[in-house]
């Protein structure tokens, strides 16, 4: 692997340039005659002086250092880094979509509105909800929107004492942050021995101050909540609502629906489940769906249909208002819609089947070498505990670095918090058996390396552009800006 190279600012020679302009055809005037003195720089502008080829080589070289789903296996737990079919991009780039303006009159964008409307029908069918808004621009934004809808619902019923949201320890990491952001207090619910939410603890925590229970099902342990309908009953009986974090929907498409489990609000990460780019490549999209009694509070506008005509429906007097300019990240919705149409209902079900199969297959391989707590049939992901390896001298973080040396993006590390030295692994539906086998082999090799020389593993990686970075110093004394020496 090539090692880190000079910055653009450290390259070049004084006077070198990558352009040549024709001579000026109007009389030249000194800049201080054109601008007031106070607006003029006192020091010369420090910009790199380079030729075009130097700039091109620099950026082309940097671009080859990107790691993404298109370059390799990316088993990031809770994030469904599945392959994004390129045809999605083609469709979203069709001039009819790409050249549209959000302020165009309704009758000139009927096709786009129809797609929006159809997408909503598909998402309703997939989740068992009544209506969807496509406005939220990602999962966490969807969470906040969902909680605001729940808040509006309680307030509208003059129920003002519900100031708590219950969150299991196996929840998605953004949930507590969203709850705090929405002005609620977080109440954590522990897990039981099987990795389910502890039902007794839930019953004890629920009361007339409970606004909602926020849940990811399957959980971040990759386990399906076995008592979900009973949990829903407990929360509903106390007047609370159920919020479904759709981060893990890739595990259950066509098999189970949050709406049928008793959830009142659901957000989907279509950049995870429905194959649109995410992770810096975004933008994302986090549609929020609700049951009938919550529809009046959804953001406006929704897209309605009268006869053959599609229109923006602003007629929701109790709406929480807008949560995004215009109608959300529509380009992303196009890609997800295209994916759903290409896959079909059976195809989406097959994707979930494959995701679950891949996860169980990979877990069965890794189990030979590593410790996997809560060992039962799992859904789309599983969590390895590198606690025994940590005792030998190289923990989850070190294994992650060693994977980089072997050409794999590491899984999510140190999360969920209930598993010590966690390596949260999600192989997803688009990976082949050969890739999974190669990953399992790499993990096995790393375990052997730890047995032989844990210290060496703990000092890696060795073949990446930069070696072991000082994470502590980076946080304590961050250097955020390059300065000329």
């Amino acid at each position, binding site marked *: 692997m090539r090692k880190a190279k000079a910055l653009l600012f450290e390259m070049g020679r004084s006077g070198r340039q990558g352009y040549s302009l024709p001579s000026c055809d109007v009389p030249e005037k000194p800049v201080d005659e054109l601008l007031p003195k106070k607006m003029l720089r006192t020091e010369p502008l420090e910009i790199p002086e380079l030729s075009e080829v130097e700039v091109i080589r620099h950026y082309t070289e940097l671009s080859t250092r990107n790691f993404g789903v298109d370059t390799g296996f990316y088993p990031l737990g809770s994030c469904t880094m599945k392959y994004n079919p390129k045809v999605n991009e083609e469709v979203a780039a069709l001039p009819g979509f790409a050249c549209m303006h959000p302020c165009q009159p309704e009758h000139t964008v009927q096709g786009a509105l129809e797609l929006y409307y159809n997408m909503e029908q598909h998402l309703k069918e997939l989740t068992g909800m009544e209506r969807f808004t496509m406005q939220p621009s990602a999962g966490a934004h969807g969470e906040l929107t969902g909680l605001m809808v729940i808040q509006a619902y309680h307030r509208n019923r003059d129920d003002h004492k519900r100031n708590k949201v219950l969150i299991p320890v196996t929840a998605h990491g953004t949930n507590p942050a969203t709850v705090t952001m929405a002005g609620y207090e977080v109440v954590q619910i522990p897990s039981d021995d099987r990795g389910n939410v502890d039902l007794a603890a839930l019953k004890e925590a629920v009361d007339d101050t409970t606004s909602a229970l926020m849940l990811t099902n399957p959980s971040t342990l990759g386990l399906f909540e076995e008592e979900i309908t009973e949990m829903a009953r407990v929360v509903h009986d106390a007047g609370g609502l159920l919020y479904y974090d759709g981060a893990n929907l890739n595990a259950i498409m066509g098999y189970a629906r949050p709406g049928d489990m008793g959830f009142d609000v659901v957000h989907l990460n279509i950049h995870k489940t429905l194959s649109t780019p995410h992770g810096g490549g975004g933008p994302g999209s986090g549609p929020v769906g609700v049951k009938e009694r919550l529809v009046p509070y959804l953001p406006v506008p929704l897209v309605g249909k009268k006869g053959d005509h599609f229109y923006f429906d602003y007629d929701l007097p109790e709406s929480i208002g807008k949560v995004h300019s215009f109608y959300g990240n529509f380009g992303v919705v196009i890609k997800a819609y295209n994916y759903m149409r290409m896959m079909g209902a059976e195809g989406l079900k097959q994707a979930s089947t494959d995701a679950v199969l891949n996860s169980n297959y990979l877990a069965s391989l890794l189990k030979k070498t590593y410790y996997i707590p809560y060992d039962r049939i799992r859904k789309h992901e599983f969590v390895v505990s590198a606690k025994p390896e940590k005792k030998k001298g190289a923990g989850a973080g070190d294994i992650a670095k060693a994977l980089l040396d072997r050409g794999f993006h590491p899984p999510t590390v140190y999360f969920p*918090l209930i598993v010590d030295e966690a390596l949260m692994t999600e192989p997803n539906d688009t990976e082949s058996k050969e890739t999974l086998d190669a990953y399992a082999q790499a993990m096995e090799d790393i375990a052997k390396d730890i047995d032989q020389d844990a210290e060496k593993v703990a000092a890696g990686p060795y073949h990446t552009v930069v070696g072991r970075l000082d994470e502590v110093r980076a*946080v304590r004394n961050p250097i955020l800006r390059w300065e000329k020496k």
Partner: protein
Amino acid sequence: MEYKVVDGVKYTQQHEWARPEGNIAVVGLSDYAQNKLGEIVFVELPDIGAAVEAGKSAAVIESVKAVADLYAPVDGTVTEVNETLLDQPELINQDPYGEGWVFKVEIKDESQLASLMDKPAYEEFIIKEEKEE
């Protein structure tokens, strides 16, 4: 015992310790907890005069691995905070029961402190927790 557990302080199930000094309790994070968190890089302290409630978040500890709440072991009012931690959060790693203390709280109800774990009970608690994982 792999982790340092000291006498003269009381421990919570969330791994805070509280050392009574008259009607004041000095509060910090146990050696076990700092070990689990790894290198601590940032501490958010409570305000002096703030009312804290037993079992509720009173400070935030951030390590390279995770962000964790530090829960108040007893009800009371914050009288002093360890401002040195703002520049040297690593003191919690280096000396969790000494220079790594986080804040002091005026105790409202002595019985709350009495109900917390002493050294042998906390050692047993850690051993149990380690097994469960």
